[in-house]
């Protein structure tokens, strides 16, 4: 491979590399929290970290940031359905 090839490889793999580092770092945080349980209600932080990981995969790896408005709307509707499902069912269980 020539130097130009390496330069191109670095350029096209820059975003996937940054995504990899971010996801591994967030996983490390969750694993450390899960293994040590450093304080009460640590699950709130763990859930927040997991939500960040999901957002990164959706927006960057699955390219939702660069997709057309129709595809973004479609994927958002999926999560909106989940919101309704979780909201309605947990309203029952959490307030019994």
């Amino acid at each position, binding site marked *: 491979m020539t130097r130009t090839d390496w330069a191109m490889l670095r350029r096209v*793999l820059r975003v996937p590399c940054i995504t990899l580092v971010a996801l591994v770092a967030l996983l490390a945080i969750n694993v450390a929290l899960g293994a040590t349980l450093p304080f009460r209600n640590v699950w709130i932080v763990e859930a927040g970290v997991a939500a960040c990981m999901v957002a990164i995969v959706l927006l960057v*790896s699955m390219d939702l940031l660069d997709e057309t408005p129709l595809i973004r709307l479609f994927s958002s509707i999926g999560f909106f359905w989940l919101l309704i*499902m979780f909201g309605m*069912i947990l309203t029952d269980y959490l307030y019994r």
Partner: protein
Amino acid sequence: MIAEPVGIELVGHFATVSQQREAAKLGLWAWLVTELLLFAGLFLCALIIRIQHPAAVTLAATHLKFWIGAANTAVLICSSFTMSGAIALSRIGWRAGMLRFMLATAGLGTLFLGLKGFEYYQDYVEHMVPFLAGPYVLARDQATRLFVDVYFITTALHGVHLITGVSILLVLTWQASRPHFLARHQNRIEVYGLYWHFIDLIWIIVFPVLYVLNR
């Protein structure tokens, strides 16, 4: 590097290539949304069991193989990187590099399945499989069965998706190794990549929901 021409062969019922590309992605997203609802039902079950039987769920969760789950999450994150690499190289027509990334993705997917199989074996050895005939180590607390059953159903369903994903990926790799593939079907790599990232996404939710939050 030998860059090959990259493009999409226009199918008759589409007016333009961009319309064809968007339709393919939209179709896959429609399916992924239904898959999301399927897995979300299981996550909701895990959450309700947690709300109703917190002590039993904590007891059962401590018997799960936390470190194998963590290692598997890392493996899938790496596979997501290699899939992104394959997509990036397909866009610039670097077929040889793309094929290597695709094979690496399939290899990491297989490694995940191997680790998962080992984890199931450990569960079996430790009598943590309540639906099989034989002793169940947490039999004194019947509520733990609910959580362990949801654990097996969720991880097995994810495993089925991964087996399907690796199989399709190997076929796609074989197709992509033939000449002129990227000039006619580059979007297949992108559309397939969505599926692979989705498998990763589901596991990124499965790991905290089953292994981490309940400890």
